[in-house]
């Protein structure tokens, strides 16, 4: 086995290490995984658990879409169960999949390695975060076993305040779901706390702030949002739990409480949470675009500071979720602030495009996801502008236009980047190469299916189709638009099954991954695949992680090596 020596890495290759030891075979047995303090193993456990949750959330979405294939009648679900299924879909996808997806799964595996550290600052807290995630997932499952809830994933009062006369769910199911989200919130807080301390205090000599890969900047900005916004959600959920248990009346209009106050609390968290979801995705894409274009990232500092700017703006725009229930003055302020978020977002898009310009682009699977992200994120951002426009929002509020808009951000951007990141780091995480051609085909099916699902929803929404309706009249072509959308959802199912198939097959009979299959120059490509238990043999030396001039393709090992070697 030949291993590449590298230009800047201090990790000198020595064949017997590469062959024998890595973090996967470091120790044996179930407990060595369940009680591990190794950030890579915790990341892999997160990845497996999150992908399982993603499968569940996806099935719930398919059930909802199938029900909507015809405008009237109950194809699969009664109205009550329809409400429960879209709630389930939203809660799983937001709290269990997208929020922890990139930071907790991919971030855990690669963040310390990218930084050149041996582990995150608090490994035990890291493991605790994982078990908080598991507990949160268990609570959501329990809520389903108790009959499910139909509050919507936002837990708006008074839906989330149990009322025997009006609700088809039980108080126990609501309390259980709220507890689950509360736990997942703390999982997220502790992950963010860990990452901030790691980035501040565990940078090795030479790793200055402006030498960090942009993925770390975006994870840092995300972590700030996680620590400062999530506690507000936690207290809101706690109050709702107490409300359901003993009836304190804070959010209950029947008892003089204020349900809109609950919406303000909720969105004070959940709008920054939108950036908790999208910022790591932007970080992943910064890596994908630069590495696979083999060109130095354009405008490093602009991308870095735009992440911070987005995190700050993210705290100031929550009111735009309540344009229909605030004073005109507040609406104007929030509308203006919302527009300003588009500036740092656009800065990033232009920088990625400028990075690709005159680059030597490899159209492989991770790069396809990177380019798909730019395309879909641009649509997501531009369709956000009409929603930030007060007069237009009155028409579009709570229609399928909103649904399509946030699916372009949440799924088309965040999840596409997550899947792209999995493909990018799969050789590093698993030590195996997947089938590249199947990867490309699956991407195009996914891309097609995604747009087929959500472009019709833009059209239906702009014609007035309200969200969350179980039945609808067949006017303004609503039925044909819904049917296209449902067919698109099943197309995506096909692509996800393909992805699952070839990733699993790569573990069975995939080619062994070289140290540096893509030609990246950040530190994870300077350690073996899969990495050692302790990541690096000695503290690595740090160079410019976006300088690819010292690397050359070596056909023998099917990977990039240093020109010196």
């Amino acid at each position, binding site marked *: 086995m030949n291993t590449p020596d590298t230009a800047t890495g201090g990790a000198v290759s020595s064949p017997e290490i590469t062959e024998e030891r890595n973090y996967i075979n470091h120790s044996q047995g179930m407990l060595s995984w369940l009680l591990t303090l190794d950030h890579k193993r915790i990341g892999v456990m997160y990845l497996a658990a999150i992908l399982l949750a993603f499968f569940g959330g996806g099935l719930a979405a398919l059930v909802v879409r199938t029900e909507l294939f015809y405008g009237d009648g109950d194809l699969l679900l009664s109205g009550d169960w329809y409400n429960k299924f879209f709630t389930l879909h939203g809660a799983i996808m937001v709290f269990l999949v997208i929020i922890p997806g990139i930071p907790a799964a991919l971030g855990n595996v690669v963040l310390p390695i990218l930084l050149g550290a041996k582990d995150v600052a608090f490994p035990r807290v890291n493991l605790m975060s994982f078990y908080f995630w598991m507990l949160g997932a268990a609570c959501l499952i329990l809520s389903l076993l108790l009959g499910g809830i139909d509050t919507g994933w936002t837990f708006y009062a008074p839906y989330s305040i149990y009322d*025997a006369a009006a609700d088809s769910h039980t108080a126990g199911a609501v309390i259980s779901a709220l507890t689950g989200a509360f736990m997942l919130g703390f999982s997220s807080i502790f992950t963010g706390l860990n990452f901030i301390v790691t980035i501040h*205090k565990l940078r090795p000599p030479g790793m200055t702030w402006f030498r960090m890969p942009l993925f770390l900047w975006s994870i840092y900005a995300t972590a700030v949002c996680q620590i400062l916004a999530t506690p507000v959600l936690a207290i809101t959920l706690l109050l709702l739990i*107490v409300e359901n248990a003993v*009836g304190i009346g804070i959010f209950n209009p029947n*008892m*003089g409480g204020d349900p809109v106050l609950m919406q303000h609390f909720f969105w004070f968290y959940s709008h920054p949470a939108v950036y908790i979801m999208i910022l790591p995705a932007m970080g992943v894409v910064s890596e994908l675009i630069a590495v696979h274009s083999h060109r130095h990232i354009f405008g490093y500092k602009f991308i870095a500071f735009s992440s911070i700017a987005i995190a700050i703006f993210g705290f100031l725009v929550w009111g735009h979720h309540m344009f229909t229930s605030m004073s005109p003055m507040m609406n104007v302020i929030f509308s203006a602030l919302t527009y300003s978020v588009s500036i740092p977002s656009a800065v990033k898009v232009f920088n990625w495009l400028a990075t690709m310009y005159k680059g030597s682009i490899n159209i492989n699977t991770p790069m396809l996801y990177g380019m798909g992200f730019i395309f879909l994120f641009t649509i997501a951002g531009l369709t956000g502008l009409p929603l930030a426009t007060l007069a237009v929002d009155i028409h579009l509020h709570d229609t399928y236009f909103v649904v399509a808009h946030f699916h372009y951000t949440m799924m088309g951007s965040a999840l596409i980047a997550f899947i792209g990141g999995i493909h990018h780091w799969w050789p590093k995480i698993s030590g195996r190469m997947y089938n590249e051609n199947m990867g490309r085909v699956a991407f195009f099916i996914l891309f097609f299916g995604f747009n087929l699902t959500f472009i019709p929803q833009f059209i239906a929404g702009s014609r007035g189709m309200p969200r969350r309706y179980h039945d609808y009249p067949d006017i303004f072509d609503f039925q044909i638009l819904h049917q296209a959308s449902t067919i698109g959802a099943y197309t995506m199912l096909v692509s996800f099954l393909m992805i699952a198939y070839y990733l699993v097959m790569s573990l069975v009979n995939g080619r062994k991954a070289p140290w540096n299959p893509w030609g990246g120059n950040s530190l994870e490509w300077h350690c073996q695949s899969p990495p050692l238990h302790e990541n690096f043999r000695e503290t690595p030396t740090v160079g410019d992680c976006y300088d690819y001039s010292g690397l050359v393709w070596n056909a023998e090992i099917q990977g990039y090596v240093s020109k010196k070697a």
Partner: protein
Amino acid sequence: MSDDHHGDPNLQHHFEDMDQQFNASKLGMWLFLAQEVLFFAGLFCFYFVFRYNYPELFEFGSQYLDAKWGAINTVVLLISSLTMALAVRCAQTSNKSGLILNLVLTFICAGGFMGIKFVEYKSKLEHGVFLGLFDYYTVDSELAAREGNVAPTSPVERVAHATITPADPNATTIAPPAATPTGITRPPASAGEAHDHSHDGHEAHDHSHSHDDGHGGHALVIHGERPANLHLFFSCYFCLTMLHGIHVLAGMIMLVWLYLGAVKGRYHAGYFTPVDLGGLYWHLVDLVWIFLFPLLYLI
């Protein structure tokens, strides 16, 4: 790598030296405290919103609170903060007996605080006010609504009946119109059971008022008419003080753990991180109370 600390058994493998480990732990604690502040901020925000919208609830409700006990508790917590700070200092100077003494003193103050809170809560219960369904008035108005009374008895009438306040039964105009207790349908496990229970509570309530001169060493004299939705004030009071109390309890567990470590001689000038971080946490718990006391008891 600094060789002098490298062999320290307290150094975890992924840190270069003790300084790095200490700085990382300290930053972690500050971030944790930042999230604690925002956790409480939600409740404070709730306090300010409701105080702004319904000042009469807070004016009336705060009569149930005894500023004397609140003030004593403030002093107790301030002393505990001082002893905690001294404990940190003792750990830094490797003064083992001083550390143990100060940790014990801090624990006693924390216990005293919780004891006084218990006395206060007990007196609230005896006056028939508590959180949500356990609040006598909330239960009664809910039951009235559930039993289908078109016009449930106004809280003010019941208050007059319970002889807390000699109010004009018709003077209900203080309450905002939307806030009259209507249509609440929150059955506990069994409606019949709850019904009986509430009537017991009713009698117990009247009974307690005929004897309430002894509670907390003073007679509870309530001026003015009981506004509708007074439970919002008590929800606010109990949510804030209970959440704070939970943090005090967590702090007491932490103090026991620090004490056990101190007895074993684990903390010294070279390694005092847990005591230092525990101190930071304890000061935050103190700080929250410094805000709670004037907001709830004084203004």
